[in-house]
């Protein structure tokens, strides 16, 4: 039994289901009118991607994806939608002119098609021993990499977060005066 050219295993089924969830949510996100529904679809995309990470053996990254994207960022988005939208107002008319919309769509489709072609026709050098998922706790591996190989980057993240925090507070609080 094959599914799109891949043997049916739990992994394959899970992948295609998740892909379906991601792409449907993504399409919904682009077509829905109500911004709150969009936020919900966004959550779907993020959760799907988290599932993909888990399939790829990156359980820690997957959980982080749920925690930060599906949890925190979605809530931040919802809050800012509440701040900037009065629900009774109808959503602002058509997004862009139909011509421009179709043109953009065609353009994007061509780009994506090209990328897909490249992906299909590149012979990716795959190691015979694909990274065995979970033979060791990924958290430990990540910690090791973070605190030995990527020390500087790690500290930079902290600096960026602080900067973002301070900057966002400054910008958002301006009205108080």
């Amino acid at each position, binding site marked *: 039994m094959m599914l799109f050219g891949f043997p049916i295993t739990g992994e394959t089924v899970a992948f295609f289901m998740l892909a379906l969830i991601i792409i449907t949510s993504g399409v919904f996100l682009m077509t829905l009118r109500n911004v709150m529904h969009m936020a919900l679809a966004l959550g779907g995309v993020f959760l799907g991607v988290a599932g993909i990470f888990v399939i790829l053996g990156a*359980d820690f990254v997957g959980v982080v994806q749920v925690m930060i994207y599906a949890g925190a960022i979605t809530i*931040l988005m919802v*809050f800012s939608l509440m701040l900037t939208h009065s*629900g009774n107002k109808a959503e602002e008319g058509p997004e862009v002119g139909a011509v421009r919309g179709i043109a953009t769509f065609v353009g994007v489709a061509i780009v994506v098609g090209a990328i897909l072609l490249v992906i299909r026709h590149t012979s990716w050098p795959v190691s015979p021993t694909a990274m065995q998922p979970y033979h060791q706790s990924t958290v430990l591996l990540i910690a090791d990499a*973070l605190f030995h190989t990527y020390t500087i980057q790690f*500290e930079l993240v*902290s600096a960026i977060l602080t900067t973002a*925090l301070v900057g966002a507070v400054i910008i958002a*609080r301006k009205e108080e005066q």
Partner: protein
Amino acid sequence: MYSNNFVFVLIFMALGVLLPVGALVVLGPLLRPNHPTRAKTTTYESGLEPIGDARIRFNVRYYLFALLFVIFDVEIVFLYPWAVAYHALGVFGFVEMVIFIALLVIGLVYAWKKKVLEWK
């Protein structure tokens, strides 16, 4: 296999979806009456007709809390691998993390000083 654990979680999740969907979509219409009337579907506002719309714009304060939450959530995410590997990392890891936390505490203190944390 370790990945079986995720299958188990998935089963839980599926049951978690099935239960409300089953109760609300399948069982519900069979058991529940459904006679909506105008008065019944009116929004509750202490027994009076609601004045104005509920979906007003809210205070920016809520956004600021969400903002702080996002930033600190990210911090926690980096704290966890550190905590797990703490014994292996030793003093160097500790110092690294102290710097990391210190930088973020500066942000927190800044927000504190800017009265973001006040709820007026």
